[in-house]
């Protein structure tokens, strides 16, 4: 693959409030589906947040698909969609349709096109019936589906998901997992404690105490990670 699918970190370190969160991370990734595993506090969420500029590197550079994230944060955020662990933190509008519509703010589409795009997106995720429902009345699984729909309607070329299934029951976790792994056209970086999900990716990264500890074939990484805690 070309530069167009490459995520490249060079000597990246992150220090927040005097604490070193990540250090000396250098990696090039061009796989389609990338899993990130590691214990709580290992720096994996910070790694995810570097990719769309929610966290700025203290040292080093982060390039996503040829875009320097620190230099062109706006372009980076159009390229990278971000799914948070807790959909409540991500859903910002009072009703389902409005939340999807928020993502298309400033897209220059006319009202009719906007309505059609929102309706198509909601139908694609099985949320069509709930268009006018208040967001707070949705179930956890529906909320995460909506969060994903609101991200994907912008057609990002990389989707970064920070533990997207952690708060979901088994059925909903599998559903979101399937959507991300099997049905997504964009490149995917998924931070997860769900090792089954990690194993279905093309490459896995293991973070440990702020260092990128290992990169490799997911089943091998997951096996090693499991042994660590056996």
């Amino acid at each position, binding site marked *: 693959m070309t530069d167009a699918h490459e995520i490249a970190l060079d000597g990246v370190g992150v220090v927040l409030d005097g604490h070193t969160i990540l250090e000396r991370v250098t990696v090039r990734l061009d796989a389609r589906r990338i899993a990130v595993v590691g214990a709580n506090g290992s720096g994996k969420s910070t790694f995810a947040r570097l990719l*769309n*500029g*929610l966290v700025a590197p203290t040292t080093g550079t982060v390039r996503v698909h040829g875009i320097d994230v620190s230099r062109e944060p*706006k372009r980076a*955020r*159009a390229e990278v*969609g*971000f799914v*948070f662990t*807790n959909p*409540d*933190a*991500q*859903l*910002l*509008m*009072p*009703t389902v*349709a*409005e939340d999807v*519509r*928020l*993502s298309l*703010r*400033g897209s220059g589409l006319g009202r009719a096109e906007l309505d059609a795009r929102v309706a198509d997106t909601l139908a694609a995720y099985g949320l069509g019936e709930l268009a*006018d429902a*208040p*967001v*707070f009345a949705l179930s956890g699984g529906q909320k995460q589906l909506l969060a994903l729909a*609101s*991200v994907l309607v*912008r057609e990002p070329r990389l989707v970064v998901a920070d533990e997207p299934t952690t708060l979901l029951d088994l059925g909903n976790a599998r559903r979101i997992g399937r959507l991300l792994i099997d049905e997504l056209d964009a490149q995917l970086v998924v931070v997860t404690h769900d090792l089954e999900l990690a194993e279905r990716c093309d490459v896995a990264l293991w973070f440990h105490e702020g260092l990128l500890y290992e990169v490799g074939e997911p089943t091998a990484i997951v096996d090693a990670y499991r042994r660590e805690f056996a």
Partner: protein
Amino acid sequence: MIALYVPGRSLLHRAPAGAKLVTMFALALVISLVPHTLPSLAVTAFVVVDLYIVARLPAATLPRQLWLARWIILIMVATQLIFLTPWDALVNTVRVVAIVLLASLLTLTTRSEDLLAALETGMRPLARFGVDPRRVGLTLSLAIAMLPVVAAIARSVRDAERARGVPLGPRLVVPVIVLALRHADDVADALTARGVD
């Protein structure tokens, strides 16, 4: 108090949000400024009830809105009975309740996005004074969306208080505010991540 949209096909549902907003303001002004007599109070009540009927909302809607406003009504009646005559207390209470019910009717029959779009249009002349109507609209939507979130935070703090058996009393506000501010941080991150400015 934020009545949420109830989908429907009535005349009031189909009327443009801007027109409804202007009519609501006009009615509110008339109700507030007209010196009331017993017949005019009756007419006010009749108009409000009639509008609810025109909106073809579920029968329980109007009583429910009144029930939601019960504390306002109670406090208004109680304080005014201390300082004013019973007649003035009645007039003022009917005025306020009628306006609250009309405002609820507006939100019951209008999608908040349509209402905000109408507000944004209405505020457009203010753009020359440096007001960004789109931003004001977004802020209002965010505020509406955050109300149930803050209510949920307050509920979970109260649950934690009960579960741990530590009575917090009025100090309950502190964790609620801390959690609400933390949520505000998350919202700021989400706005950034979603490319909204």
